[in-house]
């Protein structure tokens, strides 16, 4: 049995020792212990170093609000988690834990030099210190901040655990299984409702676990608890432990994280580490209880200084005495019971120091009976001890006068500054709070959600009050759910109800300016920092918070918010509500990325759309690229080829004979109906009314602002049926835009729109031998210039499959696109591939497609356009049906800015030194002008692997269309490149190659 463990006490299992390590040293705890309780049982208080000053720190609390005792936990490769609260992590055999923020060791830490230099690190020090000189930023400040920033160390390996997600719909969700929550559940149980009761702890009971002395309806607290939970379970209430309600979102959606394996010695197979529950509850009861406030005095952060209520938890729940000769300092009655209970457990309480001059007689009498010295109207002004408190300085208070100090030896200092209702989730609902002067705290007022708050979280102290309140308050929710509200009565004996006063920093006889009286322990924010922030002009608590970082640590102000507010309000000479309370934001406690990501990782992170021909591409060593969630073959390298070599080969082969390309990803929309032609005509710039069935036309889609949004070839299959293609990435956007106009602007048009992207496989064959290759497979239809000219379409059988055959070209070569029902795609591809061997057929990917189209000056929307380019800018005025009455964007094209002179226009660029430009590079007219230069455009596309004898580029250049033949300059980091402005067509300007 470890030194400070009390045999037979607590809820730990003395028959089940558990061995774990802390900083490499093995410790034996008991099943049911947390890391903190097990270490405390061995007298180990020092558990970490603080963030800024690297001050030695111990556990100050016993629950999830702990700001100090943050550790790293490890379970084999990849399973490392920093910043775990030692007060929450349950121990198991083999658990490895480490302290953080120390070098080289926890007991001797170099970073603690910051503590000696603390005057430099006062409020706002980041803002003041790192301002200038400017040149220091890169070399001095940033590396310093980067090295110092962050708590703990990030895991470096991939997390091998899995994380689950679930939805849950219920009638009533109760958050917090203390007395109030359990009482609420009791009224709701057995009434045909689905009721869920959750608690973040490993077992339910809340306060009852730390206050076993009370007797509820004649039963001991723990017996009552056991019976009550069994009854709830029996009645069908879903009880969830180790489950934290992290956030309260709109319309009663509550996010909850259930920890499933972190407490287990061996990982069960096929079990996620955590599960994120997205709960939609018709009614919610919040019974989160209250958090104890620390007192603020010089040295209140020394290991061994702890919240009195937490010492009670360690004593009663874990059977651990946190000190053998503790001193208690308090402004609230509740801490007196900690002194009594520890004394009863064999400790020698050295003194109860209470800031109040008057305290309840019964408490004083009991202290006398137990032989505990009492100092009323006293303050604490300092503590001593290096890595653990060993003495505390106590001074009498006489009004505002602080008398001479007296040092009292001790091995722990238990403090209580009263209790703060836990209003985090309530605040997530945008619930309003009201300041209570008597309790010196905010209490919940109204919330827009179907939510009830009960027990200590609305400022009620004591087990009986909590039970009765939970029982009564849940009635409102039950009535709304249409069941009868009932109320149980409770009688509680030995209940501990107390009152207290709220202190700011405790009065001292020493210089307040030198006091290290901590308000936010994790971020090392002192009372002095808060007052300094106010002196330096911060007026709102939100500003004070950001300037000092008070409340910004991982505990999110659970300990520090109200103390910080009281001090800031005092410094401002205002009432607390006038200074305001910082906003509580989810998550309630730090939450793993894994819990949020859930199943969305690895292959499930994003959908990968594959065409029917994707398998062939994979078997033929294609290199893929993602395009609008599609996986597209980028190029098909032969052994030893680089991308440039492969693309050059694919380009040359296509222009020389025939290339085959998977165009299945092109967006496809079937536009059908009596008004189909009218609709397409209104949507696209080009005229479509007179397009005959069996013909294709290039279509340019604008927004009503006149800018290019998308493009594609549109085939008229029949009078009332169009097959519209879009860019690969634009398919969904274009359909949404079409639906918008059809549904809301032109509901009178009789048209149906259907996405058919995935219904068709599209195989493109291009090159001088394309027709020769294809002809034998086309049933009863001649692929001649006369019978099937460029921009024609026909429904025929190709290789035995029903097909929509188009004669179109995105390469400048004779081109066909064969659309077949999607499942036939690969068979058609392989048929053509086999037959194409006679023509040295070459499969090409998107990169070659890009090069070949650029050589012909065909734009790619989104690459050569950027949302501010008109058809005229792009040199595509020919596509605009100026005689039409209207089309989307027609009026927009006449906007003053769109007809202004000197707009950026799409041109070709050919470099003088034959170098290949960088896409995105900026263009200037005068390379010798002073910096900053006037930039007149940028390179949009650039290639050097094509079939021209020099690299080519497309660019948007101011007034480019009138700069033909002129030289522009592209300044690069190492040199300036000169380029001549040309037209955008580099190959076959007469389109002779399109002819069969």
């Amino acid at each position: 049995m470890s030194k400070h463990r009390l045999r037979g006490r607590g809820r730990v299992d003395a028959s089940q020792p558990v061995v774990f390590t802390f900083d490499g040293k093995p410790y034996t705890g008991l099943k049911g212990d947390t890391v903190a309780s097990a270490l405390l049982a061995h007298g180990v208080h020092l558990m970490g170093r603080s963030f800024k000053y690297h001050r030695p720190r111990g556990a100050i609390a016993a629950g999830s609000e702990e700001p100090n005792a943050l550790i790293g936990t490890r379970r084999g490769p990849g399973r490392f988690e920093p910043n775990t609260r030692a007060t929450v992590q349950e121990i198991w055999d083999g658990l490895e834990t480490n302290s953080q923020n120390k070098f080289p060791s926890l007991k001797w830490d170099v970073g603690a030099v910051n503590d000696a230099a603390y005057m430099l690190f006062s409020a706002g020090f980041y803002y003041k210190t790192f301002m200038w000189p400017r040149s220091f930023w890169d070399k001095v400040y940033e590396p310093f901040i980067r090295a110092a920033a962050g708590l703990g160390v990030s895991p470096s390996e991939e997390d091998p655990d899995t994380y689950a997600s679930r939805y849950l719909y219920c009638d009533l969700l109760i958050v917090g299984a203390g007395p109030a929550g359990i009482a609420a559940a009791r009224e709701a149980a057995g009434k045909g409702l689905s009721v869920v009761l959750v608690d973040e702890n490993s077992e339910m009971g809340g306060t009852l676990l730390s206050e076993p002395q009370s007797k509820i309806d004649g039963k001991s607290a723990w017996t009552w608890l056991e019976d009550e939970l069994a009854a709830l379970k029996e009645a069908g209430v879903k009880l969830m432990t180790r489950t934290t309600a992290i956030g309260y979102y709109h319309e009663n959606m509550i996010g909850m994280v259930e920890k499933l394996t972190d407490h287990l010695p061996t990982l069960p197979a096929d079990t996620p580490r955590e599960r994120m529950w997205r709960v939609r509850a018709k009614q919610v009861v919040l019974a989160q209880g209250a958090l104890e406030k620390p007192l603020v005095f010089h040295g209140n952060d020394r290991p061994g200084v702890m919240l009195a209520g937490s010492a009670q938890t360690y004593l009663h729940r874990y059977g651990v005495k946190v000190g053998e000769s503790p001193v208690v300092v308090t402004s609230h009655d509740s801490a007196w019971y900690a002194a009594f209970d520890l004394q009863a457990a064999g400790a020698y309480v050295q003194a109860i120091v209470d800031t109040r001059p008057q305290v309840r007689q019964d408490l004083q009498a009991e202290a006398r009976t137990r032989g505990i010295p009492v100092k009323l109207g006293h303050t604490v002004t300092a503590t001593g001890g290096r890595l653990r408190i060993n003495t505390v300085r106590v001074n009498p208070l006489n009004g505002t006068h602080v008398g001479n100090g007296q040092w009292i030896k001790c091995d722990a200092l238990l403090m209580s500054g009263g209790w703060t209702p836990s209003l985090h989730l309530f605040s997530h609902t945008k619930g309003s709070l009201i300041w209570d002067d008597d309790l010196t705290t905010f209490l919940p007022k109204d919330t827009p959600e179907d939510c009830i708050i009960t027990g200590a979280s609305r400022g009620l102290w004591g087990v009986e009050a909590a039970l009765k309140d939970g029982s009564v308050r849940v009635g409102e929710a039950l009535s709304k759910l249409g069941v009868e509200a009932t109320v149980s009565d409770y009688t509680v004996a030995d209940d501990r109800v107390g009152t207290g006063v709220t202190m700011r920093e405790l009065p001292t006889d020493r210089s307040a300016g030198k006091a290290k009286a901590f308000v936010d322990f994790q971020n090392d924010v002192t009372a002095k920092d808060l007052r300094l922030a106010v002196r330096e002009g911060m007026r709102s608590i939100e500003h004070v918070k950001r300037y000092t970082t008070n409340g910004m640590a991982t505990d999110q102000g659970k300990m520090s918010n109200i103390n910080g507010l009281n001090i800031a309000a005092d410094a401002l000479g205002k009432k607390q509500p006038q200074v305001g309370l910082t906003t509580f934001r989810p998550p309630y406690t730090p939450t793993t990325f894994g819990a949020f990501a859930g199943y969305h990782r690895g292959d499930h992170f994003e959908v990968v759309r594959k065409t029917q021909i994707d398998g062939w591409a994979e078997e033929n060593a294609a290199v893929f690229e993602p395009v609008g969630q599609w996986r597209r073959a980028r190029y098909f390298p032969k052994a030893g080829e680089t991308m440039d070599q492969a693309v050059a080969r694919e380009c040359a082969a296509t222009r020389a004979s025939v290339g085959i390309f998977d165009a299945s990803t092109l967006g496809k929309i079937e536009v059908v109906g009596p008004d189909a032609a009218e609709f397409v005509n209104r949507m696209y710039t080009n005229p479509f009314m007179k397009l005959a069935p069996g013909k294709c036309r290039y279509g340019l889609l604008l927004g009503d602002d006149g800018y290019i949004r998308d493009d594609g070839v549109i085939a008229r299959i029949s009078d009332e049926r169009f097959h519209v293609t879009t860019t690969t990435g634009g398919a969904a956007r274009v359909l949404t835009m079409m639906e918008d106009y059809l549904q809301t602007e032109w509901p009178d048009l009789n048209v149906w729109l259907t996405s058919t992207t995935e219904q068709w496989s599209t195989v493109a064959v291009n090159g001088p031998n394309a027709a020769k290759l294809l002809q034998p497979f086309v049933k009863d239809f001649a692929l001649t210039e006369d019978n099937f000219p460029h921009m024609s379409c026909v429904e025929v059988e190709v290789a035995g499959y029903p097909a929509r055959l188009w004669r179109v070209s995105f390469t400048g070569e004779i081109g066909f696109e064969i659309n077949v029902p999607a499942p036939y795609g690969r068979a058609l591809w392989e048929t053509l591939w086999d037959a194409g061997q006679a023509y040295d057929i070459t499969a090409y990917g998107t990169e070659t497609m890009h090069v070949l189209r650029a050589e012909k000056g065909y734009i790619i929307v989104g690459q050569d356009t950027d949302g501010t380019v008109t058809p005229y800018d792009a040199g595509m005025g020919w596509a605009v049906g100026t005689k039409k009455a209207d089309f989307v964007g027609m009026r927009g094209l006449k906007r003053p800015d769109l007809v202004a002179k000197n707009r950026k226009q799409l041109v070709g660029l050919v470099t003088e030194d034959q170098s290949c430009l960088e896409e995105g590079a900026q263009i200037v007219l005068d390379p010798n002008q002073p910096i900053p230069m006037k930039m007149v455009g940028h390179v949009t596309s650039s290639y050097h692997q094509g079939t021209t004898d020099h690299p080519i580029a497309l660019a948007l250049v101011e007034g480019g269309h009138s700069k033909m033949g002129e030289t522009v300059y592209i300044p690069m980091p190492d040199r300036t490149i000169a380029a001549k402005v040309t037209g955008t067509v580099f190959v076959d300007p007469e389109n002779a190659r399109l002819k069969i």
Partner: protein
Amino acid sequence: MIQIHCPYCGETLPELEFAYAGEAHIVRPESPSEQTDEEWAAFLFLRDNVKGPHFERWRHAHGCGRFFNAVRNTITDRFYITYKAGEPRPDLAKLLEESK
């Protein structure tokens, strides 16, 4: 996550199924070519930036695909009503009264 009532499907469903689609009751002029530059710019770009009840469009993108109108409070995110495209703008005063 808010829940939205689709007036076409007649069901109240999670926000995930829907897409926001801008301010409601902005009608594309019958004859754009007759619009002055100022009128056309106003149609394209000028939108209210409401704090409180806002008339706006939503689309049941992962459901029936229909665009519809809604009145939503931009402070609380609460919907007062959703209604089909083409239906008249509801009386706001009455809506606010009813929602009390």
